[in-house]
């Protein structure tokens, strides 16, 4: 065993570390990404686990190496690191170096896969789903009748953060419980299936949104609604193609405004020609002088 007394982490340490994990991206940078955040989360734990100043400095410096992953899913790694640092301190000195390498290998090995999973789950699925739900409710005028405008943003925040904080907390606890085996438990949460299912749920909501955008005409006339929906579908198809070709939404925004302004300035071809435009070509003889006009009441 090591010469130093064995220190194990208690619930208070864990809660403190978990709360600090919300600052993970504070010093996000293009060189080492989340490295400072990881070290900041671990600082109180490392101070407790390592007795000597030199060991603390070494450990903290070790965690300042390059680390980049999804900020929510990082909690799986953070929990596992806490466990492994705790275990390392309990090992005899010669084996501690090996444990250090295992910690580094875990960070390097896990950051890629969990980043891909987190990006797909949160940025590309849960957040769009919550956003889409909120936008659909806005267009349905659901909570605006009595001026309850705060309901929709609040609903958005609740739905999103239940998933966000839930997965962060679960990841942290499971990471600490399983240590370096946490990678094996990731599959059992069924993230891939959840992504697939939620994407389908979002598509169903999108259908509602598309109908709502064109719904105002529905109340007036069926034919006009179908015409509008057909035009809308064509425009949506065009925009989707443009977005697929990596044209940014901002560029498309200005293209849309320009197109709409052109439409507004386009001459109305169905309107009858304005006589004043042709005034110079009217023969002077046709214009009856005022003095020749018949006077009412006189024959």
């Amino acid at each position, binding site marked *: 065993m090591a010469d130093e007394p064995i220190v194990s982490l208690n619930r208070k340490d864990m809660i403190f570390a978990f709360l600090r994990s919300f*600052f993970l*991206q504070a*010093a*996000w*940078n*293009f*060189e080492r990404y989340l490295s400072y955040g990881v*070290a*900041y989360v671990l*600082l109180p734990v490392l101070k407790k686990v390592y007795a000597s*100043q030199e060991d603390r*400095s070494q450990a*903290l*410096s070790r965690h*300042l190496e390059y680390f980049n992953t999804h900020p929510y899913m990082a909690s799986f790694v953070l929990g596992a690191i806490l466990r492994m640092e705790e275990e390392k301190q309990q090992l005899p000195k010669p084996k501690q170096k090996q444990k250090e390498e295992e910690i580094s290998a875990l960070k390097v090995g896990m950051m890629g896969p969990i*980043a891909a999973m987190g*990006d797909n789950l949160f*940025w590309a699925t849960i957040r769009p789903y919550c*956003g889409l*739900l909120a*936008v*659909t409710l*806005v267009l*349905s005028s*659901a909570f*605006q009748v009595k001026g309850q*405008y*705060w309901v*929709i*943003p609040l609903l*958005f*925040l609740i739905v*999103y953060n239940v998933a*966000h904080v839930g997965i962060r907390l679960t990841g942290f606890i499971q990471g600490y419980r399983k240590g370096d085996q946490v990678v094996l438990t990731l599959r059992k949460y069924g993230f891939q*299936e*959840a992504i697939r*299912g939620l994407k389908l749920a979002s*598509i*169903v909501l*999108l*259908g509602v949104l*598309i*109908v*709502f*955008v064109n719904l105002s005409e*529905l109340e007036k006339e069926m034919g006009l609604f179908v015409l509008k929906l057909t035009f809308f579908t064509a425009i*949506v198809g065009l925009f*989707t193609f*443009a*977005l*697929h070709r990596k044209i940014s939404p901002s560029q*498309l*925004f*200005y293209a*849309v405004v320009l*197109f*709409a*302004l052109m*439409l507004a*300035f386009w001459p109305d071809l169905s309107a009858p020609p304005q006589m004043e435009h042709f005034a110079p070509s009217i023969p002077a003889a046709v214009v009856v002088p005022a003095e020749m006009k018949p006077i009412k009441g006189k024959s």
Partner: protein
Amino acid sequence: MSHWFLISTLLAFLSLDVAAVGQFMVCRPIVVGPLVGWFLGHPDIGLEMGALIELIWIGDLPVGAHLPMDLMMLSGVSVAFACELLGTKYPNEAVMTYALGMTIPLAALSTEVDIFISKFNVRWVHLAQRMALSGHFRTFAWINWFVLLELLIKGFVVAAVSLTLVHFTSGLFFLFTTILNGKVIEGLYYAHWLLLALGCSAVIDLLVEKKTAVYLILSIVTIMGLAIFYHMQGVYLVSIALCVGFALALFYMGKGEKNG
């Protein structure tokens, strides 16, 4: 002028949520829009603009080293600007489109400042490394708060400058609309509906694949049928869509467990 100062302060604090603190999504347009709108007495406009911005930029994701457009600044400043123009005789849709169009370059500028800060943060990390090796753990921890202060100041300055700049372009709006005899307003009004189409395209581009396109068509046809033949109201249609969506999600999750 005091409300500009308060909105800048509010946006500065909300900007911390974009990446630095928590990421609870308080910074999303659907939240920032109504918040700024409520502050200026037009929560309905804020909500509508927030929803539009949320929809159009739904596919702009912070994946890898990519920093997406600063939507917090875009929604906050554009809603504040739209609220300033609302007292006029022009339709809300036209005012919202104009406000959004004027604010996009400023939001892009804010993103550039974010990129600069992310490069500058490298210096903080090097300092942190030196502090860690020399055993100055208290200074090491304080670096976190210095960075947050730096972000707070950035958020305030960018918001204040943006609000001042858009305030001066309001005269331009009245100039255009007066000279061009209402045609600009008409165009901006049409653009609003087209922007909703752009938003739907953004969602399709993000979520729909060849395999799942059939679900979208089925959804549109079913919802249309329910709205036309059963005269169902908006909330009921959303509820039905939510239930069907959840059933599909649970079905796939169950399928995954079975296979696993």
